[in-house]
């Protein structure tokens, strides 16, 4: 019954999906945290940049962003991300860049709502003992904000996992790209779709469960 799977590297394709997800998750977490810091910063220029970036980037379709990294960044501006000649690696890296840039806006907004749940007195007390703005943010406000938004961040991570399928648009050989190839070549359409759907559920379900458990465990008691 599963003979049609022969000759296709399904696990390899999903491994690429996992790599895309993890690298983009790290990238968007870092960049999203910096953006959130900008959005609550006392410097108007930073606030302005953060707000503009989030509102522009999150409203552009991901497909457009991913295609732009290839056609715009790579073809027009010659950005190769240290992998000129090796197209598979280059497009993979460009996809990670595009996914991170896009997902960071959602990380930023989740985090910002978390920052708003930290009582003002926490930051005031931190300023009162002489901590600088950056120290107040990184030592007091963000650690508490992160703990309250683990749930929403799990949503973002699950969405990101599924959004990696868009990388197929620039030829990254991840799960969705392989699915398209198999659907073109094989007859078992429903079975192929089910296998890939299940593959994503296997990736995202534990993510949700694990982070849900973490968010309960790490909750800040007041």
């Amino acid at each position, binding site marked *: 019954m599963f003979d049609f799977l022969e000759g296709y590297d399904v696990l390899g394709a999903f491994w690429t999906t996992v790599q895309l997800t993890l690298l983009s998750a790290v990238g968007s977490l870092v960049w999203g945290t910096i953006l959130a810091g900008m959005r609550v910063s*006392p410097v108007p220029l930073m606030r302005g940049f953060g707000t503009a970036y989030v509102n522009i980037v999150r409203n552009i379709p991901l497909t457009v962003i991913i295609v732009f990294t290839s056609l715009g960044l790579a073809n027009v501006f010659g950005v190769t991300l240290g992998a000129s000649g090796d197209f598979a690696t280059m497009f993979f890296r460009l996809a990670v860049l595009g996914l991170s840039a896009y997902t960071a806006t959602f990380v930023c907004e989740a985090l910002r709502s978390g920052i708003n749940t930290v*009582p003002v*007195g*926490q930051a*005031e*007390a*931190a*300023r*009162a*003992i*002489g*901590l*600088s703005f950056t*120290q107040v943010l990184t*030592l*007091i406000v963000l*650690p*508490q904000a992160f*703990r309250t938004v683990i749930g929403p961040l799990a949503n973002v991570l699950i969405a990101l996992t599924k959004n990696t399928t868009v990388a197929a648009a620039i030829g990254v050989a991840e799960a969705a790209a392989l699915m398209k190839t198999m659907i073109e070549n094989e007859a078992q359409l429903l079975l192929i779709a089910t296998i890939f759907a299940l593959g994503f559920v296997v990736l995202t379900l534990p993510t949700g469960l694990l982070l849900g458990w973490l968010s309960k465990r790490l909750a*800040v*008691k*007041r």
Partner: protein
Amino acid sequence: MTEVSVAKDVVAGTSDLVVLKSVNKHFGALHVLQDIDLTIATGEVVVVIGPSGSGKSTLCRTINRLEGVDSGEILIDGKPLPAEGKELARLRADVGMVFQSFNLFAHKTVLENVMLGQLKVRKTDKQKAEEKARALLDRVGVGTQADKYPAQLSGGQQQRVAIARALAMDPKVMLFDEPTSALDPEMINEVLEVMQQLARDGMTMVVVTHEMGFARSAANRVVFMADGRIVEEAVPDQFFSNPRSDRAKDFLSKILHH
């Protein structure tokens, strides 16, 4: 303000530590601080009292610039209060503050709360910081709670930890913004006792409070505020037994006779 005359002989110290010169502040249309002039000498304990909305908390918060002012000048140890930035952070480290709602860092243990400022602002090494933190926690009577989180402590214990956290910075002056107002009645005394001890040890203190007993026993001077102005300044005995302004007489009649 013709009624203002400070009894200089009770001033404990010699030099002026905190000086406010014609400070004004608005919250929108509300003129919350109106031409405030106030001088606090080293070692002096000044208690600020007055009806709610009189600006006493705001006054306290302007001294370490948690609230900015619209006009006027504030000097700490002879230096004008700097604008936002590194300079201001350095100054705040020298001005301890205790809040009505404690504001202990909720994600850190009691010990970490008291060590944080030493480690990150004073750059003390970890062992010294911990020794000092434990000594201070013992001093305020919560040494056994060091490894708990703030939410596991009673209000009175939390406030004493907050005092220890401020003291860990070796502040030149301590500001108390209604430190006992959020406490259950049976916990007020344990906090006031720590403050009394501090006052006896010669700490310069500005205390916004409704605790008249503390004002009587620990203050060198009582500042009475109403409607954004300093209406009267006097030594406690004189203020409580013989207030000069009608506003203060009215206020005292409401809180002392029932």
